[in-house]
C-alpha cells in the first residue's frame, strides 16, 4: 500500500470519465452492459453471472465456495450502528455497515465513479428526464423469503417521501419525486417534479433509499430494535446498542452465497484499541486506523497485517459565516482566504497525508479540470492577505474560529497561527461535537472547518449548502450565503442530461461561488486506514471510507479466510 | 522480698533534631510483694516513663540505655518482646490516666475483659465471659451481666476506669502499675475508684506502683513513697514519716505547696528546667533555697540518711533535719 494518493487511482478516475458515465451508464445499463471500460473485471463477471446465480452456480464456483466458506469475521467498528432502522442513518459508519450487509439500494456508485445496477438492472429516463423507469432484478429474495417486486420498491419510496416517517432520505427524495407507480411486477416508474436528470445518483446513496419489503414498518415507526429484512448478502441478526451489530450469511442471496458465516461489527471506539485487537487477531478487519499505526505496518514493525488508506474518506473545507459582522465584508473573507496556506495545514494537521483540492471534486477528475479552468486556486499568500486586510473594514475584532474536538483541534491550531500571522485576532474555540454543531446551526461563529464526502456529483452533493431557502435551516446552509441567481442555476443543473452541459453549468456555478468567497477548500484527507489480518482475503474498499457496495468491487460479500 | 527491683534505670529519648533527652536518670527503687509504692513528682519528671519502662511499652524513639528492672528476680530490660507479652496483662498490669480513651471504642467492654482470659489463660468464649462478669462484680460495676455487652461510650469515666481495673486484674497479676488512675475523674468518683483499687490490692496481695502528683492521695494509698524531680529520684521513704518529716528540700517544697487551711501557700520558686539541658550538680539547686556551691558542682547520690534504720533515702548534700521544715 502507499501512504500517498496512488497515481493509479487518479488515473482511473480520469480514465473512467465519471461524468461521461452519468448518462452513458444509464443508457448503457439499459442494454444490460456497462460501457465504462475501467470497470474491474469481477464486477462485469458478477453482473453476467447475476442472473445465472439464481439458476445455480457453475460447478467450479461451488467448489470454490466450499473451499472458502465459513468463519466469523469480527470487524472493529469506529462508530456504532445507532439504530437498525432501515431509514435512519446517523453516521457514515452506520450507513456503510447496513449497506455492506443487509440493505441494498436500487443502484450504486462504484469506486470508479460509475453507477452500477444492484436491485435495478436498468434504468432509463424520458427525453426531458421527467419520468424515470427502473427495471427490477427478478428473483431477488428478501431475508424473509419473499421475492422483491415493484410493490416493495413503491412502498419503500413512499415511506421515505412521507415526512411523518422522518426518514433520512426525505430531504433529498421528496423535492424530486412527485409519484411512483408500478408498470408491472418488475418495473416501476418515477414521475419527477420537473426535469431530474441526476435522479439516479441521488438514490444510489443507501441512506436515501434502501429497499425493504412492503409494510416492514408501521407509519411513523422510528424506533425499532431489529433490522427489517433486506436483500443483502447477510441477514440482520442482532443489535446491541453501544456494543455490536451481528449479521449472518444469507444463503439465498441473489448474487450468490457469501463466504463468511457471520460478521460481528464490534464497536471499539478507541483507534489504539482497534489496532491492538487487530494485532492479536481478536478482530480481523477494522477501519479508521491512525497514520502512525499504518506507518508501523509499512515499515514492517508490525507484521501479518495489511493496511490501505481510505483515500477519499472525506475532505475538509473552511467556511465563512457571511452573516457575521466580520465576514459580511467580502474583502475580509478574501484576506482570510489568502492567509490560509492549505498545504501547510495538511502538513501540520494531517501528517502531510492528503491532497489539495479546489472544490468538492476529486483531483484529476473532469470536474477538477473545469474548476481549474474557471477558478484558479487562491494559494496562500500572506503579503497579499496583509494588504487586503489593511484595506478592508477589519479593525481587529476577534474571529470566532470554532473546531470540533479531536481531528478539528490541530486544524484549529494551524489555522489560527496562519490567520494571526497576517494580523487577524483569532479566538479559537475547541468544542465538543454537539456544541460545535449547535454553534454552526445558530450562527455563533465566524469561521469553521467542516468535513464532507464525495457522492459522485459536485453540484448534487453540495447544493443544499448553497440554496437560499435552506439558509433558514442552518444545518444545511451554514455559510448563510444566499444568491437567487445561484439557486436558479442549480435548478437548471438538475434538469441537464448531457455531461458537456453539466460541466458548462458547473463552471458557472463554481464561478459564482468562487467570486463569493464563502468557502476555502482544504483537501482530501488520507488519515484513515483500513487494516486487516493477512489471512483475510477478498477485502476491497471504495477508498472513501465505505468498505461496502456489496457486489460492486469488493465489500464484505466476497471476503473469506485463508486457512 | 522485693517483687520489683529497679536498679539505676536510665531511659533516653532520641530527638528529631538528632540529640537525646534523658527522661529517667539512674533511678533505683524496690517494691515488695503486697506493698504500695507511690511515685510522685511534677509532670515531666519521668514517672510515666519509669512505669512504661517496666512494662517495656516505651515509644520506639525511647530506649533503656542503662540499668536493670528485676521482676521476680528476672531482668525485664533484657526480655524479648515475646517474653514480655507473657508477662504483660498476666503478671504485671497497668491502668492509665485517661479512662475515656484507654478502652477500644469499637468493642464491648465485656470483650475487652474476656479477651485477656482467652489470650493468657486460653479460655473459651463461655468461660471467659463468665470470668469477665465476675471481674465486673469485683470492681463493683452495677448489673455486671448487662455491662458485658455494652460499649465504652455508654459508661462514665469512673465506670470505664473500673473496667480498666477489671482488665488489669483479670489474670491476678503480681504487680499493678496505676499511672494517675484518678486524675481525670471528679473528686467523688475519684474516691470510689481509689477504694476499689485499695480493696483489690489488699484482697489480692498485689504489689502496686501508684503514680500520682497528688500527695494527699499518695499519703492515703501508699506504704512507701518515691519522689522524682527532673528524671531523678530525690527522696524515698516510708509514707508516714516522709510526709511528716521530709529530708529533701524538694519534698519539703512540694508539701508546702499543698493548700492547707490556716497555712500560707508557698509554691516552689522558679520553674522546672528543660530536660534537654539539665543543670550541673544537683538538679534542684536552681530552685533550692538552701543551695550551696557544692550543690552546683556535685550531683548528690541517692543514699541512706542518718539516723539509719528507717529506710529513708535522699539525694541531697545537705539533707534537712527531718522533723518539720528547717527554720
Amino acid at each position, binding site marked *: 500500500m502507499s501512504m500517498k494518493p496512488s497515481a493509479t487511482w487518479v488515473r482511473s478516475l480520469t480514465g473512467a470519465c465519471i461524468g461521461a458515465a452519468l448518462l452513458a451508464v444509464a443508457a448503457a445499463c439499459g442494454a444490460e452492459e456497462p460501457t465504462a471500460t475501467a470497470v474491474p473485471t469481477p464486477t462485469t463477471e458478477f453482473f453476467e453471472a447475476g442472473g445465472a446465480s439464481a439458476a445455480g452456480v457453475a460447478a467450479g464456483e461451488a467448489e470454490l465456495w466450499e473451499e472458502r466458506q465459513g468463519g466469523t469475521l469480527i470487524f472493529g467498528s469506529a462508530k456504532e450502528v*445507532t439504530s437498525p432502522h432501515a431509514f435512519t*442513518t*446517523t*453516521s*457514515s459508519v*452506520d*450507513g456503510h455497515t447496513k449497506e455492506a450487509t443487509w440493505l441494498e439500494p436500487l443502484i450504486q456508485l462504484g469506486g470508479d465513479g460509475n453507477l452500477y445496477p444492484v436491485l435495478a438492472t436498468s434504468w432509463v429516463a424520458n427525453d426531458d428526464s421527467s419520468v424515470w423507469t427502473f427495471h427490477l432484478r427478478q428473483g431477488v429474495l428478501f431475508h424473509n423469503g419473499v421475492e422483491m417486486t415493484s410493490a416493495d420498491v413503491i412502498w419503500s419510496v413512499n415511506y421515505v417521501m412521507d*415526512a411523518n*416517517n*422522518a426518514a*433520512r432520505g*426525505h*430531504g433529498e427524495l421528496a423535492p424530486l419525486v412527485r409519484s411512483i407507480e408500478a408498470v408491472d411486477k418488475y418495473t416501476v416508474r418515477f414521475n419527477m417534479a420537473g426535469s431530474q436528470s441526476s435522479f439516479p445518483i441521488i438514490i444510489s446513496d443507501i*441512506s436515501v433509499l434502501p429497499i425493504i419489503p412492503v409494510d416492514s414498518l408501521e407509519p411513523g415507526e*422510528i*424506533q*425499532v*430494535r431489529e433490522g427489517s429484512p433486506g436483500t443483502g448478502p447477510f441477514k440482520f441478526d442482532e*443489535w*446491541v*446498542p*453501544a456494543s455490536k451489530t451481528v449479521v449472518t450469511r444469507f444463503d439465498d442471496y441473489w448474487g450468490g452465497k457469501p463466504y463468511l458465516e457471520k460478521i460481528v461489527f*464490534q*464497536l*471499539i*471506539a478507541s483507534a*489504539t*484499541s482497534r489496532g*491492538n*485487537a487487530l494485532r*492479536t487477531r*481478536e478482530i480481523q478487519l477494522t477501519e479508521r486506523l491512525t497514520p502512525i499505526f499504518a506507518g508501523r505496518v509499512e515499515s514492517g514493525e508490525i507484521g501479518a497485517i495489511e493496511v490501505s488508506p481510505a483515500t477519499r474518506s472525506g475532505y475538509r473545507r473552511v467556511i465563512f459565516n457571511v452573516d457575521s459582522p466580520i465576514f459580511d465584508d467580502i474583502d475580509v473573507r478574501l484576506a482570510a482566504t489568502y492567509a490560509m496556506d492549505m498545504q501547510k495545514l495538511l502538513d501540520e494537521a494531517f501528517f502531510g497525508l492528503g491532497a489539495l483540492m479546489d472544490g468538492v471534486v476529486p483531483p484529476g477528475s473532469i470536474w477538477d479540470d473545469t474548476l481549474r479552468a474557471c477558478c484558479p486556486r487562491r494559494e496562500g499568500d500572506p503579503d497579499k492577505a496583509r494588504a487586503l486586510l489593511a484595506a478592508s473594514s477589519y479593525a481587529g475584532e476577534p474571529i470566532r474560529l470554532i473546531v470540533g474536538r479531536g481531528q478539528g483541534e490541530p486544524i484549529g491550531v494551524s489555522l489560527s497561527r496562519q490567520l494571526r500571522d497576517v494580523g487577524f485576532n483569532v479566538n479559537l474555540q475547541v468544542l*465538543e*461535537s*454537539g*456544541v460545535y*454543531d*449547535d454553534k454552526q446551526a445558530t450562527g455563533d461563529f465566524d469561521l469553521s472547518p*467542516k468535513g*464532507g*464526502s464525495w457522492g459522485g456529483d459536485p453540484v448534487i452533493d*453540495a447544493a443544499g449548502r448553497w440554496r437560499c431557502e435552506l439558509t*433558514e*435551516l442552518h*444545518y444545511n446552509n451554514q455559510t448563510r450565503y444566499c444568491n437567487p441567481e445561484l439557486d436558479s442555476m442549480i435548478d437548471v443543473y438538475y434538469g441537464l442530461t448531457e455531461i458537456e452541459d453539466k460541466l458548462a453549468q458547473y463552471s458557472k456555478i463554481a464561478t459564482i461561488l468562487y467570486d463569493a468567497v464563502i468557502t476555502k477548500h482544504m483537501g482530501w484527507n488520507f488519515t484513515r486506514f483500513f487494516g486487516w489480518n493477512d489471512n483475510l482475503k477478498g477485502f476491497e474498499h471504495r477508498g472513501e471510507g465505505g468498505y461496502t457496495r456489496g457486489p460492486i468491487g469488493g465489500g464484505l460479500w466476497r471476503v473469506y479466510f485463508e486457512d | 522480698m522485693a517483687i520489683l527491683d529497679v536498679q539505676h534505670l536510665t531511659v533516653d529519648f532520641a530527638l528529631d533534631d538528632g540529640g537525646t533527652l534523658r527522661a529517667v536518670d539512674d533511678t533505683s527503687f524496690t517494691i515488695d510483694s503486697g506493698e504500695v509504692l507511690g511515685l510522685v513528682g511534677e509532670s515531666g519528671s519521668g514517672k510515666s516513663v519509669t512505669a512504661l519502662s517496666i512494662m517495656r511499652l516505651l515509644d520506639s524513639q525511647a530506649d533503656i540505655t542503662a540499668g536493670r528492672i528485676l521482676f521476680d528476680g528476672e531482668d525485664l530490660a533484657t526480655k524479648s518482646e515475646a517474653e*514480655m507479652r507473657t508477662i*504483660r*496483662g498476666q503478671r504485671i*498490669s497497668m491502668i492509665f490516666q*485517661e479512662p475515656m480513651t*484507654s478502652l*477500644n*471504642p*469499637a468493642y464491648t467492654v465485656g470483650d475487652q475483659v474476656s*479477651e*485477656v482470659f482467652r*489470650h*493468657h489463660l486460653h479460655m473459651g468464649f463461655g468461660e471467659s465471659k463468665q470470668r469477665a462478669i465476675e471481674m465486673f462484680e469485683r470492681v463493683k460495676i452495677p448489673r455486671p451481666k448487662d455491662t458485658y455487652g455494652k460499649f465504652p461510650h455508654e459508661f462514665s469515666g469512673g465506670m470505664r476506669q473500673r473496667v480498666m481495673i477489671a*482488665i*488489669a486484674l483479670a489474670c491476678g497479676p503480681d504487680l499493678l502499675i496505676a499511672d494517675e488512675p484518678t486524675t481525670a475523674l471528679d473528686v467523688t468518683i475519684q474516691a470510689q475508684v481509689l477504694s476499689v483499687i485499695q480493696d483489690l490490692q489488699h484482697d489480692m496481695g498485689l504489689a502496686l506502683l501508684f503514680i500520682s502528683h497528688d500527695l494527699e492521695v499518695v499519703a492515703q494509698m501508699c506504704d512507701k513513697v518515691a519522689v522524682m524531680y527532673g528524671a531523678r529520684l530525690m527522696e524515698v521513704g516510708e509514707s508516714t514519716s516522709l510526709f511528716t518529716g521530709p529530708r529533701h528540700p524538694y519534698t519539703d517544697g512540694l508539701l508546702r505547696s499543698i493548700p492547707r487551711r490556716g497555712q500560707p501557700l508557698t509554691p516552689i520558686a522558679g520553674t522546672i528546667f528543660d530536660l534537654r539541658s539539665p543543670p550541673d550538680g544537683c538538679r534542684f539547686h536552681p530552685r533550692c533555697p538552701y543551695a550551696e556551691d557544692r550543690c552546683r558542682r556535685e550531683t548528690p547520690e541517692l543514699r541512706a540518711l542518718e539516723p539509719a534504720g528507717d529506710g529513708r533515702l535522699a539525694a541531697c548534700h545537705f539533707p534537712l533535719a527531718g522533723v518539720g521544715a528547717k527554720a
Partner: protein
Amino acid sequence: MLIRYSLRRLLETIPTLFIISVIVFSLVLLIPGDRVLVMLGYSGGDIADVISKEVYAAMEIRLGVNDPIPLQYARWLGRALQGDLGTSPLHAIPVMDIILARLPATIYLALASIILGTLVAIPLGVAAAVKQNTWVDHLANGVVLFGLVTPGFWVALMLVLLFGVYLGWLPTFGYTAPQDDFVEFLRHITLPTIVLGLDFAANVIRFIRTDFIEQMREDYVRTARAKGLSERLVIWKHIFKNSMLATVTVLGFDISRLMGGSTIIESIFAYPGISFLLLQSIFNRDFATVQGVVIFIALMVVFMNYLADILYALLNPRIRYE
C-alpha cells in the same frame, strides 16, 4: 435499633434522590446539540447536507422535544417512579432494559476491582503503617504514587500491549458473561480489573496508611499492648476495626464511583458496561438513555453511600443510637 436507623437513613435519601432527579433532568436538557438533527443523521456536516423542514418538524414531534420542560419532567418522573425510565428515541428498547442488560458487566468489573484493590490495599496499607520507612512502606508508597500519577488509560494501554499483544495471554477487549464461559469471563475482566483495582488500591492504601498511623498513637492501642496481646491481635483486631470505620466511608465513595463504571476504561477495552453506554448515548444525543443512565448511576451512588453509612453504624457502636 439498627433496623430503625437503617429505615430512617433510607427515608432521608428520598429528598436527595428527588433533588438529583431534578438536576439530572435539567442538566441533560442543557447538553448542547440538537437531538433532532442527530436523529436525522446530522453530525458535523459529515454526511447529510439536506434535511427538510417537514422531516425536522416530524422528528421534533416524535421526540416530544417541544413540550414544556416541567411537563416533560413530570411525565418522566411519573414513569421513572414505576421503574420506567422511558424508551430511547433511537430504538424500541426501554432504557431500563438496556441498563439492566449492561449492568452486570459493570458490577462484575466494579466488584472484581474492589476485591483486587482491597486485597492489595489493606495488607499493604497496614504493613506500610506498621513498618514505616521500611521496604514495605516504600513499596506501598510506590503503588500509591503510580496509581495516582499515571493515568488509567495509559496503564490500560501498556497492559494491553504487554499481556495482549506481546505475550498473547489475555484478550485486549470485550466481555463474556460468566454464565456463558467462566474462564473467558475471567480472561476478559482481568486487565480492566487490574487498571481499576490499582487505582482503587492507591486511594485506599493512602487512606489506610495515614489513618492507621493515627490510630496506632491512640491510648486504646497502648491498653491492648499492656494486656500482653500479640502484635497481630493489636493490629488486626484492635486497630483494624477502628481504622475500618474511617476507611468504610472512603470505600463507600470509591465503590459508588466504580459502580458508575469508568468511561475511559470501558471505552479502551470496548467493555459493554453502563458508562460506555452513557458515553455513546451522549454522542448520539439519546437523551432518554442519558437521563436514565445518569439517574441510575446517581441511585447507585446514593445507595452505596447509604450502605456505607449502615456499615459504619455496624462497625461503630457510637453512632447507632444517635
